[in-house]
């Protein structure tokens, strides 16, 4: 179970542009390194991140091995209505993690 940190403003005015920050614990092993006996370490990264606002996709990112361990991502969206913003991370070896945050729009 990977630990995910999500930062979404809780109470905002309608139409306001908000910044959403996410961080998830993950090794992001590049697949280009070798262990102490010279054996290649297989790639193990998060490949896709998706954010949905009340079910509607608002942001998607394809990640590559160049992304640092414990991937941090921030992006923006317009606060339209109260509800839930859901986050989904998928990656190598069947990695799948979800998270969500409530938002109140006044």
């Amino acid at each position, binding site marked *: 179970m990977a630990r995910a940190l999500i930062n979404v403003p809780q109470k905002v005015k309608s139409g306001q542009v908000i910044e959403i920050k996410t961080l998830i614990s993950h090794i992001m092993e*590049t697949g280009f*390194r070798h262990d102490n006996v010279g054996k290649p370490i297989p790639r193990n990264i998060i490949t896709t991140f998706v954010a949905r606002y009340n079910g509607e996709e608002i942001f*998607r990112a394809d990640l590559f091995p160049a992304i640092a361990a414990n991937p941090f991502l921030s992006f923006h969206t317009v606060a339209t209505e109260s509800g839930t913003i859901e986050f989904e991370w998928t990656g190598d070896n069947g990695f799948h993690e979800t998270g969500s945050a409530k938002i109140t729009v006044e």
Partner: protein
Amino acid sequence: MEKHIMGATRRDMLLAGMAGLGAALIKIEPAAATPESMKKAIRQVVGEATVRTGRVTIDVPTLVENGNTVALAIEVESPMTKENYVKAIHVFNEKNPLPNVISAHLGPRAGRARISTRFRLADTQTIVAVAELSDGSFWSASADVIVTLAACLESLD
């Protein structure tokens, strides 16, 4: 005379040793991205379209002490309306093992075309960000980054 020969021999050995070390270093380096492979990766994204310079701002430190995590932010000038918005932001590098860094897809709903993340840098190099706009045009910016401690190439202890 003999001392001179000895010195020469020692110098030769040192040179030979250094050459050997150099060769060894080249050998263990994995197949890296090159400016050419970065261009190829950019072509794969933009296709035949021309990429113009401008509208994109890369926010990255010019001098990086640790290439394992480097803060990166990309902002694209755009009104972000339904008619005129940024569809995607792609980031490329020229000297990591792979030319791609991230491809972010956004829409008019974003309100502001700015993303940030943390990435790895294997060497001192140039970073290129390409923005794809809703009208089909591509805009780009580049930034030079000097890296003191490189990422990716070290082995585990």
